[in-house]
């Protein structure tokens, strides 16, 4: 019996083939990517100067979601593992930041690496048993994790740290002295810088030897193993790295919202990340920003249409995407790019 090869996506393998066949097109595609990157940067830097504080706060939130979705994409899109439990790592990161700031008066900047390290370890440890769980079982275990998270955060022995149901209130940091920005603007730029750094790291990771190993595991685990890839190690590392990203996003989220409470980290949050992943395009890293924008703004629009129907709107959009455009924004951008190419030649 043949082993079912699950290619979630137009995988990067085919891209590589195209690059070999048509270097000219690939180079031009690269220049388009470069230009759009510059445009994105200019727009992103201009945003706080153009909009009111609340909108700036929303854009910051969007970047935070984008970082979390980027983390999920590393796991699902690049390594082919599932997680419905990333709300748990987001919560862990958020609580790490909040507790460090609240109890130990650590500066908000240093809570990010701390949250990253703690989430990496937690993710790695969760990934260890998870590597025995394939596909649906992993989805199940992480689903359980997502549902149990709010209750774990409410457990009474942890109350001294977590504040129980009440949660923790933290103080919004000011811009460093000498920089003429208000708090919202400063946090926006701070989040943007962190996000860009994490994005570049993720891109380099995917392009590296380790990244190729991760994708090989996604495309065909048995072949990957026979080529000498240590499945156990790489799958756990992928889980840990993904949790690291999501944890840092959680820490940033706690800092900008100034508040953490158990009930903000339910399954709904995990679903939002998953939606963002599919919308942005599974396996396409820049898609995270589209996903982040989607999960932040679409529920608001849906709430505007009818109170409480945002879940249904989410669901319908998800199903439509899976049918009509399973590659999400990635597929859309690709088709636009190829049309441009055709118009030129």
């Amino acid at each position, binding site marked *: *019996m043949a*082993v079912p090869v*699950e*290619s*979630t996506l137009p995988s990067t393998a085919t891209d590589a083939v195209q690059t070999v066949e048509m270097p000219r097109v690939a180079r031009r595609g690269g220049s388009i990517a470069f230009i759009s990157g510059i445009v994105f940067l200019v727009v992103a830097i201009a945003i706080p100067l153009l909009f009111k504080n609340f909108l700036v706060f929303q854009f910051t939130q969007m970047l935070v979601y984008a970082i979390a979705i980027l983390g999920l994409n590393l796991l*699902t899109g690049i390594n082919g593992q*599932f997680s*419905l439990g990333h709300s748990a790592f987001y919560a862990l990161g958020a609580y790490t930041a909040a507790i460090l700031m609240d109890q130990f008066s650590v500066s908000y900047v240093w809570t990010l690496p701390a949250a990253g390290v703690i989430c990496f370890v937690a993710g790695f440890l969760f990934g260890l*048993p998870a590597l*025995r*769980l394939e*596909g*649906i*079982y992993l*989805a*199940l*275990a992480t*689903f*359980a*994790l997502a*549902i*149990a998270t709010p*209750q*774990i955060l409410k*457990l*009474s*022995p942890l109350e001294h740290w977590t504040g129980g149901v009440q949660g923790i209130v933290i103080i919004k940091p000011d811009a460093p002295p000498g920089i003429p920005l208000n708090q919202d603007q400063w946090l926006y730029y701070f989040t943007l810088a962190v996000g860009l750094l994490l994005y570049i790291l993720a891109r380099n990771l995917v392009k590296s030897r380790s990244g190729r190993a991760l994708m090989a595991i996604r495309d065909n685990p*048995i072949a990957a193993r026979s080529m000498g890839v240590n499945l156990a190690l790489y799958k756990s590392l992928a889980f840990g790295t993904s949790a690291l990203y999501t944890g840092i996003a959680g820490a940033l989220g706690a800092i900008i919202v100034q508040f953490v409470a158990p009930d903000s980290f339910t*399954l709904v949050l995990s*679903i939002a990340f*998953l939606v963002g992943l*599919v919308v942005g395009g*599974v396996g396409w890293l820049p898609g995270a920003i589209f996903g982040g924008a989607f999960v932040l703004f679409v529920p608001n629009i849906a709430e505007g249409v*009818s109170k*409480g*129907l*945002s*879940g*249904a709107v*989410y*669901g*319908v959009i*998800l*199903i439509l995407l*899976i*049918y009509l455009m*399973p590659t999400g924004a990635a597929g859309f951008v690709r088709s636009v790019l190829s049309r441009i190419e055709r118009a030129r030649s």
Partner: protein
Amino acid sequence: MELLGQQILAGIATGAIYACMALAVVMIYQAIDHLNFAQGEMAMFSTFIAFQLMLWGLPYWVAFPVTLVVSFIGGVLIDRVVFKPIHDAPILSHVVVFIALLAILNSTAGFIWDFTVKAFPSPFGSAPLFGSSLISAHQAGMIGVTLLLLILLFVFFRYTRIGLSMRAAAANPVSARLVGVRVGWMNALGWGMAAAIGAIAGILIAPVVFLEPNMMISILLYGFAGAVLGGLTSPAGAVLGGFLVGIVENLAGTFIPVIGGELKLPIALMLIVAVLVFKPSGLMGRTVVQRV
């Protein structure tokens, strides 16, 4: 010692809920080889349909079978409309669609019937059974119905032609198709049956936990735990697993001081992870060997 006995009995009573749910989960798993994350919300929605029918003045014993039929049709429709087109799609697509269904059903139910908690009648009455305070008539009825369902399912799968076809379609779709089994419709039938079993579970559970759109999410988790513990390939194992989860939950809540509390979800999480790590096939399941 008496406390232990009482807690075990109470555990069996709550376990009946989980057993019902686990049974529905395993039914779908058998039919389509996927875990249905929307199972709980489907059961919740069916229960709301029963609630609405009774609100319109239908007596309980009319509303009950009507709900089962509606749920069965709903299950078949979900399979034919939503899942058939993506039959060959990778697992990620399936999981995403399950999650989408979960969100749609939950928020639609909240939209139609709002999120206030509603009481739901019990056919067995809530009086204590035989005057003992350990187990109510409703809980006893629930255990009875679960066991009856299990027996019916066993007979169906073991002794009827269509049950055999369903098993064949699930075990080896290609060969089943070659000998004339209509695999697609067998899947749809599995969905319909799972929806109907879910409806029974929902209707039995609602008098205990009350009716509201979020009533099922934690019960689904326990149902999953029961199904995984018993083995995803075995309906009898699922029922056994459900009862065991109920007992473990009650004992842990009583004897481990830290846990206490209303719902002990972290226990379900630990159970699931532990079973998947140490004995992925569960207590009564088959080990599935993949040929390379």
